[in-house]
Structure formats: C-alpha cells, structure tokens
C-alpha cells in the first residue's frame, strides 16, 4: 500500500476513542430510519443516539426492532443479533428468516448501514472483509449491505499502526462493494464522499486537528466545501 503518511511525527492532539467515533456517527442517524449496524465501532452507535431519535434496528439473522442486550447469562439463544449477542424481547419486534432479511437489504429498504472498513477509496470503494496476507476472510452480509443500503457510513480508526492510511486513492485489499460509501467517521475526521463531483470533502476534524494534519494521514486528496467543523 503506497502511503505518504508513513513518516509523520506525533499526532497534534489526542484522537477520539472508539466510543466518541460511534457517538459522532450516531449523530447522522435519522429518527425512524431502518438501520443496520456492523460489528465493532458501528455497533456502539446504539449507545449514543441523540435524544428523541428512535431507530428500527435490523440484523441480518432476521430481527427488526431490537434494543438493549439481555443481562449477562440471561440471553436466549433463539433471540440473537447478527453479532452473536442476545437482545431482550421488546414490543414491536419482528422475526423473519434469512430470505426475507436479505430481500429487505438487497431491495434497498435499509435506510442506513454503519460498517467498519479496512480501506476506503476516494470514490467510495470499500474493502472490509479480507486482509490479503491472511488469504481467507468472511463476507457475511457486508457485500449486500454495502451495495444496497440507501446510505453507507463507515466508522473506523483513521489509520492503522504506523500511521498507515486507510483512506486511499485505490483500495488494494479485496473489495466489498464499489462506490458505495457516503461518509466516513474516524478518530480524527468526518469526511463526506461526493461521488457526483468526484470529491472527498473534509467536514469536521477532531479538536486540535487541522486540515493539514488530517490530510497528512490520508492518502486520498481531501477538499473543503464550506466550513470545517469540530467533531463532537
């Protein structure tokens, strides 16, 4: 992976933690939407919804309308989410099989999915299912979600160890879907992908981070369109 950010010095300010990334991503989830959260940072979004926002959570294994998890040791194996955790039974929940679950996804009925990523390219290509050197990986529902959800938000750390960029010109890892990502929330920036105009727009930075600081840790060229806000 070509990477211009490799030789940088220390970060100018602390990075957001995983919870803060999730909290910022959660701000972009609209009340009443049907939402699928991937495992890892995306799943944490559910803990940080703005007041008054209620989402209809979908999980690939055939459940819509779940909320909090059961207490440890109290979960029912027949009431699972796609991450293998056991939610509580709550009013309005619905169960269905995998045929219907993926008809919902593939048919474009998921309003937003929040996913993790290994790489995102400037035009919104996503790689998130296999590290080439391992040679084997798990696709699960990621390709269906990335290709077909109305909006795809990536929530991830901005760099891998050694400041290697994950936001790149071209993905070098096996792809999950092409031109699918709409926005990226990381520990240092909120970035919008403007596919129509072939631009990656920096919308916000973490406190104490400048445009140049973020650009230096990003292989793909960022642009500005209006004010750059502060992530919160």
């Amino acid at each position, binding site marked *: 992976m070509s990477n211009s950010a490799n030789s940088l010095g220390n970060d100018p300010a602390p990075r957001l933690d995983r919870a803060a990334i999730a909290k910022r991503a959660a*701000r972009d989830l*609209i*009340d*009443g*939407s*049907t939402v699928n959260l991937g495992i890892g940072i995306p799943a944490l979004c559910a803990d940080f919804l703005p007041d*008054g*926002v209620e989402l*209809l959570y*979908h999980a690939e294994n055939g459940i*819509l*309308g779940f909320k909090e998890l059961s207490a440890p040791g109290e979960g029912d194996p027949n009431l699972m989410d796609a991450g293998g955790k056991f939610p509580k*039974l*709550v*009013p*309005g*929940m*619905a*169960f*269905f099989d995998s045929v*219907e679950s*993926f*008809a*919902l*996804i*593939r*048919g*474009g*009925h998921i*309003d*937003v999915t929040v996913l993790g990523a290994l790489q995102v390219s400037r035009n*919104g290509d996503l790689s998130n299912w296999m590290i080439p050197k391992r040679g084997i990986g798990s696709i699960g529902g990621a390709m269906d979600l990335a290709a*077909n*959800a*109305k*909006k*795809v938000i990536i929530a991830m750390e901005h760099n891998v160890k050694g400041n290697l960029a994950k936001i790149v010109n071209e993905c070098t890892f096996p792809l999950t879907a092409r*031109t*699918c*990502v*709409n926005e990226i929330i990381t520990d240092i920036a909120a970035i919008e992908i403007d*596919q129509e105009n072939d631009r990656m727009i920096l919308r916000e930075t973490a406190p104490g981070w400048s445009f140049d600081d973020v650009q230096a840790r990003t292989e793909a060229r960022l642009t500005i369109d209006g004010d750059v806000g502060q992530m919160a």
Partner: protein
Amino acid sequence: MRTKIQQSVSDTNVKDRTIWLAVPINKISNSFAQAVADIPSGASIMIGGFGGAGGQPTRLMLALRDLGVGDLTIIGNVAGISKTTGYGWPDHLDPIDQGMFFESGQATKITCSFPVPGTTNPLSDIEKAWREGKAEVDIVPQGTLIERIRAAGAGIPAFYTPTGVGTPVAEGKEHRDFDGRTFLLEEALTADFALIRAQKADTRGNLQYIGTSRAFNPAMATAAAITIVEVDEIVEPGGIDPERIGTLSTYVDRIVLRETGDPLP
C-alpha cells in the same frame, strides 16, 4: 449506496432534524380518501389479495374510484370476475372487484393472471373494456406474476422460470437452458402505489394477516414506491405477536383503519 435516496433521510440536515423530531412518525391516515388523495392520473397501482373478498383492499379501491383519476395501470391477480360470478364472495353480498376501474373508465391497462371468468354471459367489465378497445389486458402466469413482484421488492431485476416455455407468454422473451431444461427470463415488476389489506397493524406499520388473505399482499407491500394498507384493527407496538408479523413496518407508508362493523368483508 443505492442512487435512490429517500428525501426524508438525505435532505434532512442536523438542524432540520431537530425540528422534524418534534413530530412523531405517523403513518395513520384519517380516511380512505386522504390515504389515496395524492395518487395521480397515469399511476401504476398494485391491488392486493387473491381475488374474492378476503384480503382485498376494498375500501381503498372504492376511495380510488371516487378520486376519479384516470389512465391507471392496475396490477392484480384474479381480477374483475367476482361481480358476474360471485367468485370468493359470500352469497348474501354484492361482490365488488377490480372491474370497477374499467367500468368507470379510469383504468387503461391491467396486468394480472385471471382477467375473465369462464362465462361471457354477462360480460365482465374488464372483458367489455377490452372488447371496446378501451383497455389493454396483459395476462401473466400467476407464479410468474407474484415472483416478478417479489423480485422487485427483493432487489432482483430478473430471474429465470420454467413456467410458460413453449406457450404464448414466451413470445419475445429470452430463453436459456440450465441442466438441459429451458427457462424464460422474466423481469421484476414494480408500481407507484400498492393498495393492500391486512387484519391488523401496529402504529409503526408492522402487519398481521389472517388465513388465506395473505396472497399477493405481502409481496406487493415490498414492491411499490408507496404502500397503503387497509386494516381492521390498529394496535400499539407489541400488540402483534413478533412471530406473526407478515409485513415489516419498513415497507408500510400509510395505514387506514376500517370502521367497526363495516358490512363489507
């Protein structure tokens, strides 16, 4: 990312959203007339059920007729045969069927599997309109019709089916062999609106069906841009057994409650 994005999601920035949140999501229409009021002339409209009274969105159909818009394309299944034959209606009631849109001159096309009864005496409204050159009738095998509707909702643009090979419905269609058998390529079928019928809705829009009233309703709910459902009962979330939800709330845009004791089935 799909190119089509709901306005409510993409056009709402954080500031607008704060305002929008004050308004609870309300899918419940106050009347059948209100629920269909924005259906324009020229619209394509799926009508649920199988044919017969059970599962037919009869009140929504009557409201659409009263709305008076024209040049409609209707997508149904068994269509317009009850009025002359009594098909699927209790003996003591006068049947109401999809023929009403052809009697009124509102519909100029129907796509369905069963547009005419066995007898031509008296002529059904659809056959009459067809004979007079006022309506196009597109006859599709029932299994192909429902699978095309299901495909539209499920993100499948086209599929191969064995049904219809060697018959008039195969004309002009792509043929292809798999494992030595010949199949036809059939494409997804969508519509602007779906008018459907369920027994019960919760306020979010989850639906419960009863008995054989499912038929074309669940698939049509997934396939149209706007889905409007006519129900006998509306309950709070949790008022439908989560094991019995036949249509997920995600697919339902508008709910209209029938009057208690409505004499129509």
